[in-house]
């Protein structure tokens, strides 16, 4: 897991610098934002010529999932002021997924959450620095296929959630809408538009009228 986060961190640093960011910007994002998907999104939108407002708004919407995550694992990180203040920053997809898997043993869940969160933070930031440094030398990270590593990693993370048919229908509808909108709308907006896929969650109207009792 640490190796994968490092590889994606390196690819983020390299892609960010190749996309025209100053050397310190990817590290500032990795330290202060520490949410891979949104970091790639904001860098990708800006590199594609999209507006900064759309980029930040899209990234924030993507990060809104941390709220329900926090509701789910809020007690696992600890209840003190410091535990919540620091633990919240370490709330990432991976630490949540691993901590949830240990839910029946709260002490172990807490240990796993903090270990994974701290390790991921360290590895992610070191990877970002290395990638930003290497990116200035290697120039085009696409030659190393790093642009494929990021969606593939995300896919591996969301795959278990797609076993639920309702979630899968909503996600497929949303992805289709986003892809159809991509040629016509500024970068970042199509992904937000995917939320119309949530319409798949609406109860399907029953064709037969209920039989009176």
């Amino acid at each position, binding site marked *: 897991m640490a190796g994968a986060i490092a590889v994606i961190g390196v690819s983020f640093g390299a892609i960010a610098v190749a996309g025209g960011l100053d050397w310190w910007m990817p590290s500032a994002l990795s330290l202060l934002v*520490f949410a891979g998907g949104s970091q790639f999104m904001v860098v990708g939108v800006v590199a594609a010529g999209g507006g900064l407002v759309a980029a930040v708004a899209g990234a924030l919407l993507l990060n809104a999932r941390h709220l329900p995550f926090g*509701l789910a694992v809020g007690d696992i990180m600890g209840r003190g002021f410091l535990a919540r203040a620091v633990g919240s920053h370490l709330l990432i997809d991976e630490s949540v997924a691993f901590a949830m898997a240990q839910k029946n043993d709260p002490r172990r869940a807490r240990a796993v959450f903090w270990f994974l969160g701290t390790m991921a933070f360290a590895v992610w930031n070191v990877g970002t620095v290395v990638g930003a440094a290497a990116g200035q030398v290697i120039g085009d990270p696409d030659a190393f296929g790093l642009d*494929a590593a990021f969606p*593939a990693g995300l896919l591996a993370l969301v795959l278990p959630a797609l076993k639920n048919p309702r979630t899968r229908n909503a996600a497929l509808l949303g992805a289709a809408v986003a892809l159809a909108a991509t040629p016509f709308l500024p970068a970042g907006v199509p992904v937000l538009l995917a939320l119309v896929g949530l319409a798949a969650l609406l109860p399907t109207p029953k064709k037969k009228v209920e039989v009176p009792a």
Partner: protein
Amino acid sequence: MNLTAILILAAGTYAFRLAGPLLRARLAKAHGGEAELPPRLTELLSTAATVLLVALIATAALTDGGRFAGIALPAGVLTGGLLAWRKAPFVVVVLAAALVAAGLRALGVP
């Protein structure tokens, strides 16, 4: 990209992260114990996160600058996806996706 945008994104992201545990604590206090959100709201929130992620994956894997991205990138992502589906370790998924995309590009596939 500038420092203001980075700080806004950082502050907003941290607010989302902190809101969960604080909201949970408040709910727990109000209910005097184990607090759970209504199942429909929980499903909506978690599904919205998945929908956004899948749309991000689809557009990142298939498009580049508003146009079709070519063969190598989707082929790499598809390889990673198949490996993940076959329960391959995360690092194998990521490396295989990168290697397939890089290999195809080295062979001249766009």
